[in-house]
């Protein structure tokens, strides 16, 4: 039994209030356009009682749980409420989940990023449920005049065994709402979990498969106008002049004007990254009319800084990796180790810029009036953007209302909310509700891209073929992928990590598993090559390094637990039958990586068919601690694997004269159905450790397993992503 002090998160709780009246409700304005499903209508209580900011209980026992964090496909809208429902001790079928609006008084960290929603929400979500359960027990104890310790609960019912009394949560919810918030509450033992650890379907599943309005692009209100932007055709350019006479005369067009995204002199926060500060805006009645008018704009642009070309920045990166860079970590004497080495293996890995390509392009609704701003749409950082919008409009923070829709993918792109600000400014200018819509081309060519990366690894082997030195040096455009304290740091006596960054006018930012999405594949390919040079099995080789890091770690601050790392590798070895039951005619590659607090090991089984790699199976072992919603977790694991393989094999964004050469899916390749693995088998380590996230740890390591399997299949190592840029025939 864990007892937690509720004061720890006191600001997370509303003052408890009794709320009456059937009208108050599941009601955020964008939901008004949704048709409630019949079962919801059937069960909706007439009266609701707010127990705390996370949940309300209806007089008939139906529970509404507010899901605080942005839902971008990671399924937190189901799994976070599951954690509350567990501690509240209710039947999941009586739970209705609603997306909470941004409310910094009640919730902490309403952000989707870093695979942190479950990890950081775990304690506060459990506490919200446990606190409410405690207050319900207190209310029942008062009503029955018995000690609260004698009140037990199960599935939304309160019981007093001695007297044989029982009552539903809904019947005491009114009294419970008046009970003072307890100073400490007991949390359940994991062995008593009834909801956590069981698979529950996506709470929005039915609305998704029936096409209900859920997403930002689906949102509309009476009198809403459509806005689109035109941005410079290349990075390092700005607006010179615009002739909007033809566009303005087109049917349905209300206005054409230019806007500055931020005020002059405004100090941007990290989530304010944007490629272009001044945009041309077209506003009209319908999407098609505005799209056409946008094409009729005659705009002159002018260059403000040098135009980037792919060949140019790739050469600059290679030059930076070739010379000493910023030292991040040094153990032992790596210079001496390399000098005395009998053999040095040196390999260089590269990766291109990548757009996020969420299937739902950037968009946002805004209705700004003289004294307030109502904003609705898909954003991963509502708390940050509230501040930016307040500063841009000159309104106090409390006058900015941000509501989150379901989001058609995030992957980091919606961390950067310049489009929220743009929508607000356009609405203010039009004095009308507007929805800003990016076309796919706008979205892909005005990106906050995954940086292009470049890294060189070196390994020193002595005359006995022992690994005596390790060196990593690399960087990227505006961001370095080198994590100096990650494995194999801590497992090798002589170790050196250095990095650099290169500035550019191409905007870059976080992209699903920042840095790791490149470096994991490079490192795991390199270790495979080192193992081969040493004549060792790649799994055995890694396990020996983990063993060293566990028993006698080199240096301090090693950013991993060697035992958990080895655990997933051993599990995937066992489940895949690696080295014992290797399937005949199949080429296998292995990889293991730790990032975003979760450990992952993967084995890819590949064959070549007509010169194309066909992945017959992926075996995957994951240690993310307690798995809240197993089937949904497996879905996320499968998706991360498919996404990682796809980007490593096919995806690239190249530049010519400062402009992205791919602007839509006719030229830009995402993985397709026929290219996905035929089967993915997922195994979780069952260790009862508090849960960590799954949004990001899956796509980085699979790139290493992929590269290693491709080597087995073809005899050739691959170093530069995307591995199949030119549609090569393998084998």
């Amino acid at each position, binding site marked *: 039994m864990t007892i937690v002090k509720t004061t720890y998160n006191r600001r997370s709780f509303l003052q408890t209030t009794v709320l009456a009246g059937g009208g108050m409700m599941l009601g955020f304005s964008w939901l008004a356009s949704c048709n409630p499903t*019949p079962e919801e209508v059937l069960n909706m209580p007439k009266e609701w009682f707010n127990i705390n900011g996370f949940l309300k209980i209806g007089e008939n026992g139906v529970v509404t749980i507010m899901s605080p964090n942005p839902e971008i496909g990671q399924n937190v809208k189901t799994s976070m409420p599951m954690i509350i429902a567990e501690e509240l001790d209710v039947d999941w079928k009586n739970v209705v989940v609603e997306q909470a609006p941004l409310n910094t008084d009640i919730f902490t960290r309403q952000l989707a990023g870093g695979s942190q929603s479950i990890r950081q929400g775990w304690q506060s979500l459990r506490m919200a449920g446990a606190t409410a359960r405690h207050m319900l027990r207190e209310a029942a104890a008062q009503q029955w005049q018995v000690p609260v310790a004698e009140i037990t609960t199960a599935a939304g019912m309160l019981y007093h065994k001695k007297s044989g009394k029982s009552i539903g949560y809904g019947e005491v919810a009114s009294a419970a709402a008046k009970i003072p918030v307890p100073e400490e509450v007991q949390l359940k033992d994991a062995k008593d979990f009834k909801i956590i650890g069981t698979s529950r379907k996506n709470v929005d599943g039915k609305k998704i498969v*029936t096409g209900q309005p859920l997403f930002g692009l689906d949102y509309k209100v009476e009198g809403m106008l459509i806005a689109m932007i035109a941005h410079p055709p290349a990075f390092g350019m700005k607006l010179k002049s615009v002739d909007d006479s033809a566009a303005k005369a087109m049917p349905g067009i209300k206005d054409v004007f230019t806007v500055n995204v931020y005020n002059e002199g405004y100090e941007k926060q990290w989530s304010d990254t944007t490629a272009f500060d001044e945009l041309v805006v077209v506003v009209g009645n319908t999407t*098609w009319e505005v799209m056409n008018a946008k094409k009729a704009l005659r705009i002159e642009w002018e260059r403000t800084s040098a135009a980037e070309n792919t060949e140019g920045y790739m050469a600059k990166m290679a030059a930076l990796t070739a010379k000493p860079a910023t030292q991040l970590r040094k153990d032992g004497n790596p210079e001496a180790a390399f000098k005395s080495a009998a053999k040095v293996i040196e390999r260089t890995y590269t990766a291109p810029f990548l757009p996020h390509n969420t299937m739902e392009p950037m968009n946002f609704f805004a209705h700004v009036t003289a004294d307030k701003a109502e904003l609705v749409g898909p954003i991963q950082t509502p708390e940050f953007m509230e501040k930016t919008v307040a500063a841009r409009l000159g309104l106090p923070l409390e006058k900015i209302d941000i509501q989150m829709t379901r989001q*058609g993918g995030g992957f980091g792109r919606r961390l950067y909310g310049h489009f929220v600000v743009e929508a607000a400014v356009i609405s203010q200018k039009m004095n009308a509700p507007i929805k800003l819509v990016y076309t796919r081309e706008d979205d892909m060519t005005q990106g906050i891209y995954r940086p292009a990366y470049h890294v060189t690894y070196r390994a020193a082997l002595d005359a006995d073929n022992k690994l005596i030195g390790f060196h990593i040096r690399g960087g990227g455009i505006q961001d370095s992928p080198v994590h100096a304290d990650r494995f194999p740091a801590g497992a090798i006596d002589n170790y050196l990590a250095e990095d650099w960054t290169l500035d550019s006018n191409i905007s870059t930012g976080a992209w699903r598993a920042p840095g790791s999405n490149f470096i994991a594949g490079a490192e795991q390919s390199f270790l495979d090559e080192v193992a081969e040079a040493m004549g060792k099995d790649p799994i055995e080789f890694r396990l020996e390094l983990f063993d060293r890091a566990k028993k006698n770690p080199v240096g301090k601050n090693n950013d991993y637990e060697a035992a958990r790392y080895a655990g997933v590798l051993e599990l995937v070895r066992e489940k895949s039958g690696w080295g014992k039951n290797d399937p005949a005619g199949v080429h296998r590659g292995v990889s293991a990586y730790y990032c975003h607090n979760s450990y992952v090991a993967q084995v890819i089984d590949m064959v070549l068919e007509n010169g194309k790699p066909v992945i017959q199976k992926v075996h995957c072992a994951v240690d993310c601690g307690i798995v809240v919603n197993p089937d949904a977790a497996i879905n996320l694991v499968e998706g991360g694997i498919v996404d990682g393989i796809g980007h490593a094999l096919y995806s690239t964004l190249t530049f010519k004269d400062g402009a992205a050469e791919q602007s839509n899916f006719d030229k830009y390749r995402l993985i*397709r159905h026929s290219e996905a693995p035929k089967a993915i088998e997922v195994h979780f380590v069952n260790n009862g450790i508090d849960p960590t996230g799954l949004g990001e740890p899956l796509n980085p390591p699979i790139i290493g397993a992929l590269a290693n399997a491709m080597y087995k299949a073809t005899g050739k190592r691959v170093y530069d992503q995307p591995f199949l840029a030119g549609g090569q025939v393998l084998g």
Partner: protein
Amino acid sequence: MATFNLNINGKKQQVEVDPATPILWVLRDHLNLVGTKYGCGIAQCGSCTILVGDIAMRSCMLPVSQIGNQAVTTIEGLSEDGDHPVQKAWLEHDVPQCGYCQAGQIMNAVALLKANPKPSDEEIDGAMNGNICRCGTYVRIKAAIKAAV
């Protein structure tokens, strides 16, 4: 501008629009049927897939003037209450992650199964290859299609 009498999800609908307007925007902006999604606007991602008759079409490049009196079915019209076999299979396999592309995936799968009730894995790949999912739910989509009978 011209007037079009459309047959959408079994209902007669009259709209007055530019004849070149893709049916996608007629559905979304004029008829408030927003289940059909915009993804690329050039018929490359499949998010906007609808049925015209029994054939899966990309609505983002299909001018309203070409529809005539053919029956159009969108995700909203697939069933009364989400109980079309393909929708049920999608729920049973809990396919969606973000969910944005899934209406298009479902509509394309419905057309496939109408033409070929028992498709092989290769036939599923061939028919579904034009529908992109950035979340990577392809493995589950295939399982759901095979289960939808």
